[in-house]
């Protein structure tokens, strides 16, 4: 009888350690009930074997800061096409990439459901969102619901696109513009000749239009120590220190080197594209990190991300138990 076996096996290990018992599928609910009642944790059931941890494992969410809790922010890929073709783009955007637009209707519904689901910030990204003719409608739908950040390469603030920018609400919208270095190289090498100057001009223009501008830099890990001149340059552009976001390059998309990021190592950031809900914006073009094809209800998708995160952490903790450090 599985409960007698479990009591006996659990009795032979220390708190936090796991045991396995063969499990008849019919007894699954019984084992779950026993764990809930006795304060032990059912880690998983795979191929007729249940893994149970003595005591309760650490709460996977307790280790996270409040701003890291999955579902605090919602990322939306408005489109995948871009006027640039940066060599490290994590979603392989370029002028030739298919647009795969999310569309105003879905963006509006997502924004409304996000607010109801407890999301506190919306982030619009691409591709280059400003390529969309209705980008100001999308932004308006978002800012009506929640504070929003729009990620852009900052190079398209001219003509009707500048008009669109001017229709956006600087009180509810921040812009995040990418800039990789305090001088044209290496920015231009990765993003295209002349792009550095146009991005800097874009940053100045957005500031002049009254927008809060965050500058995001993507650096290869070995360059992360050359930060001070970069910060000094951004200070000179009037960018607040907390808005100077410098991050290591992710190995996704067409990037050839960089940190390896997997579901297990990434704290999720719920990300929606026209194709589905993904684990994290850096993997929004990779089906290995697809969470669900169902965008709606959004709350269910967020719940699924949280559930997977908790399960992954618990499994990782259980696996760590098998290889105690010597």
């Amino acid at each position, binding site marked *: *009888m599985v409960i*007698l076996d479990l*009591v006996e096996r659990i*009795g*032979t*290990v220390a*708190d*936090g350690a796991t045991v396995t018992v063969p499990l008849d599928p019919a007894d699954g609910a*019984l084992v779950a009930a026993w764990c809930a009642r006795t304060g032990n944790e059912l880690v998983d059931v795979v191929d007729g074997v249940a893994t149970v941890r003595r005591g309760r494992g650490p709460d996977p969410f307790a280790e996270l800061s409040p701003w890291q809790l999955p579902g605090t922010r919602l990322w939306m890929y408005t489109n995948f096409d871009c006027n640039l073709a940066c060599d490290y783009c994590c979603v392989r955007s370029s002028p030739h990439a298919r647009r795969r637009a999310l569309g105003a209707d879905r963006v509006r519904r997502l924004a409304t459901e996000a607010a109801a689901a407890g999301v506190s910030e919306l982030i619009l990204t691409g591709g280059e969102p400003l390529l969309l003719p209705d980008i100001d409608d999308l932004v308006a739908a978002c800012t009506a619901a929640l504070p929003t950040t729009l990620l852009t390469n900052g190079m398209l603030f001219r003509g009707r696109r500048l008009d669109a920018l001017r229709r956006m609400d600087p009180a509810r919208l921040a812009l995040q513009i990418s800039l990789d270095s305090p001088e044209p190289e290496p920015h231009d090498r990765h993003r295209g000749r002349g792009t550095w100057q146009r991005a800097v001009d874009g940053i100045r223009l957005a500031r002049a239009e009254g927008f809060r501008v965050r500058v995001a830099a993507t650096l290869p890990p070995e360059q992360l120590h050359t930060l001070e001149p970069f910060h000094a340059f951004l200070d000179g552009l009037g960018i607040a220190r907390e808005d100077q976001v410098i991050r290591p390059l992710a190995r996704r998309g067409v990037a050839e080197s960089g940190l390896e990021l997997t579901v297990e190592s990434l704290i999720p950031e719920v990300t929606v594209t026209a194709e589905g809900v993904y684990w994290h914006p850096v993997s929004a073009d990779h089906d290995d990190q697809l969470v669900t094809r169902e965008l709606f209800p959004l709350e269910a998708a967020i719940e699924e991300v949280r559930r997977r995160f908790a399960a992954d952490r618990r499994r990782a903790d259980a696996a760590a138990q098998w290889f105690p450090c010597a």
Partner: protein
Amino acid sequence: MSKPLIVGAVAYTPNVVNIWEGMRGYFADGPAPMDFVLFSNYGSLVDALLDGTLDIAWNTNLAWVRTVGRTQGACRALAMRDTDAVFQTLFVARPGSGLSGLADLKGRRLALGSRDSAQAAILPVHYLGEAGLGADEVELVRINSDVGKHGDTGRSELDALRAVLDDRADAAALGINTWEAIGREELMPGAFEVFWESPTYSHCNFTALPRLSEERTRPWVERLFAMDWDNPEHRPILEMEGLRQWVPPRLAGYDSLFEAVRTQGISDRW
């Protein structure tokens, strides 16, 4: 800072290390620090208390009875868990077995746990005697799968339950802690039911000898009683050790075991 009190316990599961590390950490910040020594069985634990290796022993009820016997009553109990003051033995059978009291065990098979387990062997035999059943009127199926640890592992009680499931016995005697561990009859309705419950009796306690002065034990016991279920730092230790509160020892709760040991001729030694 005073020299730490050395507390001895039996390592009936690796988790005992976590429990006593937690206890040592708790006492480290206070006026009466402690360290601990673990033994593989209660015989060695009591020997170490008597020979002065230990200041305090975390004794089962049988270890307490034997320490009292070997010190001619000079040892003293300092504290116990709230759960130790109301321990019980339960007699269980499969539903429909036709057992509704101890007298019904006449001519039937009763599975007992390890012979040095008060809750699963010594007291059950005592209760049979009290119910007027003679030594040869119940067939005892003895399962000595954790001798030396006084039934602490629960292993022999689980084996006794398996004996009932396999129809090698009609009933089993077990401690209430094992009954709780399998979820009483609520998790597996139809598997087992209790047909007789013993009166409450006392189980473990912290035992010291006269050699250790009250001045040394008082601050330690006060600090022990200050452990608080509602304090998130204390709570995990209390949960692992299976209590909500430390309480003064209930000595009357040992009377039945003293009598059982006397009538069954169980020796003070091993």
